[in-house]
Every structure is written in structure tokens, then in C-alpha cells.
């Protein structure tokens, strides 16, 4: 992957923007299209992009496979964890209303709902990004003949 310098510099400049875009997609999901899933895909795309330009090995140094592998269950744990937290606080599974300080069973609670939605979306993002990158690593690491990257 010895491509010319322009591509490498452009990539280096683009990737932060992609990540920022991912964060925008994630956190603005309440108001515009997007959310954890799409943001996760964008993050994964950024990593894939990096790997395509700089090679698998340098990318794996920055984003180690062990980390992305752990991200997959971590997202599920975050998501389900919110559910168990609401259970612990005495409401139904994934009933976010209870997540605020001044919780009244009957009154709707914007703050708590938004907080809950945010956290579960973080869970989705973690799992999706982790899975997508892992899958990419797995496919890329399984070269036709020898493992060139290792």
C-alpha cells in the first residue's frame, strides 16, 4: 500500500471529520435522522478507510483487534445494563422514566427519557462499530495465501 502522499494526507485529514460526523449523527439522532447504529457504521467506515490506505497492521496498532472484539459484548452490556438499572431502581425493564433524580411514576420525564435513549444508543454504537470493524479485520486477516499483514 505505498500510495502517493496526497492520498495519505487527505485520508489523515478526512478521518477526524468522519469521526466528528459520526458523533453528530449519534448525538443529533434525537432531532434528525440517525442514531447509534448509523454512527457506528460511520466509525467503522473510518477505520476501514484507514486500513485500506495505510494497511491492516498500522490500523490494528491504533485500533487493536482485542479492543474491537471487546466492544461487541460491551455494547450489549451497556444496553441491557440500562435495563437492569431501571429494574434495580424499581421500574419495568428499560423504563427510562426512573433514570432522573425526581422521578414521579405518573409524570412524563423528558430528561430521563433522553438520558436513557442516549445511553442505549451508546450501547448500539459500541456493538455495531465493534462488530463491523471485527468483521473487517476477520475478512482482511484471512488472506488468500499467506498472512501478509502479520
Amino acid at each position: 500500500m505505498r500510495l502517493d502522499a496526497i492520498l495519505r494526507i487527505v485520508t489523515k485529514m478526512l478521518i477526524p471529520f468522519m469521526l466528528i460526523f459520526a458523533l453528530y449523527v449519534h448525538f443529533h439522532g434525537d432531532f434528525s435522522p440517525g442514531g447509534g447504529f448509523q454512527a457506528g457504521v460511520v466509525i467503522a467506515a473510518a477505520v476501514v478507510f484507514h486500513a485500506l490506505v495505510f494497511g491492516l497492521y498500522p490500523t490494528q496498532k491504533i485500533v487493536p483487534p482485542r479492543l474491537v472484539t471487546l466492544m461487541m459484548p460491551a455494547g450489549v452490556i451497556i444496553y441491557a445494563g440500562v435495563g437492569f438499572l431501571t429494574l434495580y431502581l424499581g421500574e419495568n425493564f428499560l423504563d427510562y422514566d426512573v433514570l432522573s433524580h425526581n422521578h414521579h411514576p405518573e409524570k412524563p420525564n423528558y430528561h430521563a427519557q433522553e438520558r436513557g435513549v442516549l445511553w442505549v444508543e451508546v450501547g448500539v454504537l459500541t456493538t455495531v462499530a465493534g462488530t463491523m470493524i471485527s468483521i473487517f479485520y476477520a475478512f482482511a486477516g484471512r488472506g488468500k495465501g499467506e498472512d501478509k499483514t502479520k
Partner: protein
Amino acid sequence: MSASVSSLSPAILNLIEHLPALQVAIPMLGAAFVAMMRNGLLAWFVSLIISLLMPIIALFLLHETFVNGIVSYALGGWAPPVGIEYRVDVANAFVLVIVSVMAAITLPYARKVVALEIAEENRSWFYSMYLLCLCGLLGIAITGDAFNAFVFLEVSSLSTYAMIAMGRDRRALVAAYQYLIMGTIGATLYVVGVGLLYVMTGTLNFADMAVRLKEIEETRPILAALSFITVGLSLKIALFPLHKWLPNAYAYSPTMATVFLASTATKVAIYLLIRFVYTIYGPSLELVETSAVTVFVILSLAAMFIASFAACFQKNIERMLAFSSVAQIGYITLGISFAVKTGLTGGLVHLVNHAFMKGALFMCTGAMMMRLGNVKLQAVEGIGRTMPITMGLFVAAGLSLIGVPGTVGFVSKWYLALAAFETGQSWLAFAIMASSFIAVVYIGRIVEIAYFREPKGAALLAKDPPPSMILPMIILVVACFYFGIQADLTAKTAELAADAFLSSAQGTWGAVQ
């Protein structure tokens, strides 16, 4: 929640109230944690704890449904139909108990075979897949929402494909691929059916759907939806002639996966089908008069005979048992298609009975596999002498499969044949008997090979598996006989479950507001 538990402390009471969510959420969270573990033994231990917890929750739920009828749980605190609802009656709880009990029995058995068959670094992931499969199956059985059922169907399916692909040799990969294709077609057809229903009713909640279907009655999208759902789920059930994936999938997957799937996976799909046919369509369609029932009877009969005959010609015991499973599924669907209480009870009680006997048979086969390297008929020659306990248990479970009186297989046959006479279709009773007699042939074949030939090769050195594997086998075989003599627990619960289905077909599953 109920008078019976009000005396308990508030914390416990709170927990009991949330049991439906815990039933699914615990294996899910457990799977995530197990996937993070590096140590296969630890992963097994955590899976074991979770698997032992599940039947306790399921039995609590069953008890709740005995006391209260229907237990409804609004996930996210949003009342249905806006939110997703878990709606448990005796019928669901019955299925939950079957699945979770089989899981709890499988896990102690699993440690040795998984250690033998699955590469070390994949072991914890394999257990994670198992827990996800369990989670998916329980999720399908417990949910009151058509789309939620699809999501959990996929959770269980994907984990199943992955587990099957971990089998002993390369054929497992092809088996997994075939199952993936068939399973996905099935799931997609199911979604199409649900989509049509959704377009016509505007809701995804089972109970709400049933109420609203009654208002619009028989329109063509509704009937098309029924056929899509039936065909889709029949693929998952492996109803003849959509069973092609099953023999390979069961024969080449790792032993633990075979044992667990054979005793649970198809059962849950059957439950979902009954739920649709009885609870959702029951109030609006005349069950008995639909010609679809005739088709179902014919397919069930075809499964009972053709698959049984196919079983007779298999050279591999696991494939033979897999074909026998297809035949046994035929009994269950036949029971359902009688559309009377006795028949439905027969079908439902066969769900649990078949889980017991097939679980036991596959466990014995797994033990043979462990000692002999394969379970082709030549390989098991003479093992009646060298592995007496395993083979003895195999024969005992085989008797149950044949339906000898005093075993659970007889109880199922009794109900089914009684239903045949009650509905005036006496010839079906003879068909049931004839097909179960074919089991004598294929079980008898193995008995002759195992007892009347001299052991050679690996069979000479083989010995019975360690106690951790024997014990689950014995438990299942004892269950096969105990519930054949004292069928109170299984048959009466199945009867109550049948009642629940039938009364839901009268539109009493409750409307939701």
C-alpha cells in the same frame, strides 16, 4: 401481583414482578459477559449458573399463570400496543419450562463434549452462542409481539448457525450454510406474513391483533398472511417437506448443539405457529373448516411415514435420529390440526415428551461419538458390551420413542389416538400406531448391531462416559419413564396449556387498551 406471594418481602416481590423480563434479559447479559471471558471453563460455569436459574424463573411464571391466568409485562413501561408486551399464559409458560429445563440438563453434560469438540479459544464464544440461542428461544416463547418474536427468532437462528458450523468436520459448514438459507427464507416469509397482518390491523401486539382481526374478518390479505406465516414457521419447524436442512444440521453439528437444539429449537417454532393459528386467527376463522387443516394433516402424515422410513435407511445414528425428529414433529402438528382439546393436549405433551427422549438419545449418541470418533452403524458394533450403561439408556429412551406403555411416548400416542377417535377419524389412530411401529425397526436395528456383533476397533476400548455425562442421561431417561407412569405433571399442564390456547381461540386472550 398475587395473593400467594404478597407475604414475601418487597424486594423479592419486586423481583417476582419482573420475572418475565429477567427470563430473557439474564441469558442475554450473560452471553455478553461470557463472550468476554478467555477461560472456557469459567464460561461454562457462568452458563451453567444461568441455565440453572432459567427453569426456576420459568416455573415461577408457570405458577403465576396457574394463579392469575395471564401475566402481562410492559417492557419499557409503555402499555401495549404502543410498547412491547410480554404476555404469559399457561401455554407460554409451559414452553418456557420445557426450553429452560432442557437447557439446565444439557449444560452439565456439555462441559466434556465441548472441551473435546470445540477449539480452546472458541469455547467461551461457543457458550456465548448457546446462551444467545437460549435467550432467543425464550424470547420467542414469552413475547406478545409479532415483530419482537421475529427479532428473537433471528437471535436464536444466527447463534444456531454459528454453533452448527463449529461441528466436527467440513460438512458442518455446508449444513450450517443450508440451514442459514432455509432459516432466513422461513424468517422472511414470517415477516411478510406479519407485515400483511400489520397493514390490515395496524398493530403488532398479538392480543390486539386478535381483537382487530375479528372486526375485519376474512379478507384475502389476512388469509395470505396466515399462509406466509405457516410456511415460514414450517421451515423453522422442519415440517415435511421443508425438513431438508434438519438432518444435516443435527448430524454434523457439535454434540452439545445437537442435544440442545433437538430438544428445544423446533418446539418453540411450533409454539409460535400454534399461537398464531389459535390465538390470533382462532377468534375470526373457523379453525376446523379451513381446508388448510386438511393440508396440515396430510403433511403431518407424510412426515410421520416418509421421515420414519428414511430413518430406517440411515447409516449414521445421528442422521437417523434427526429423521426420526422430523417424524415426531409430524405427531405434534397432527395433534394441533385436530383442533380439539385432546389432540392439542397430545401435541403439546409430545413437545415435552419428545424433548426428554430425543435429548436422552442424542446425549447417548454424543457419548458414543466421544468414545468412537463417529456414530456410523459399523462403528457401534458390539458396544452393548463395552459401553453397557450408555447403550442401556439408549435402548430405554428408544423404547420411549417407540411408545411402549409406561413411557412418555405412550402418553402422547394415547392422547393423539383418542383425539382421532373423538373426531371420528379412526383411521388416523391406526396411522399413528403404524408410524410409531416403524420406530421399532430403526431402533431395533441399532440394538441388534450393538448387542449381536462383536466389538472391534475403537469399540473394543470404548467405555462408558464419565458421571458428569451419565447423570444427565439418566435424569432424562428416568423422566421418560416417570412421566410415562405418572403423567400428572406433564399431561395436566399440557391440558391446561391446551385449554389456554382453545380459550384464546374464543377471543378471551384479552383486549389491550
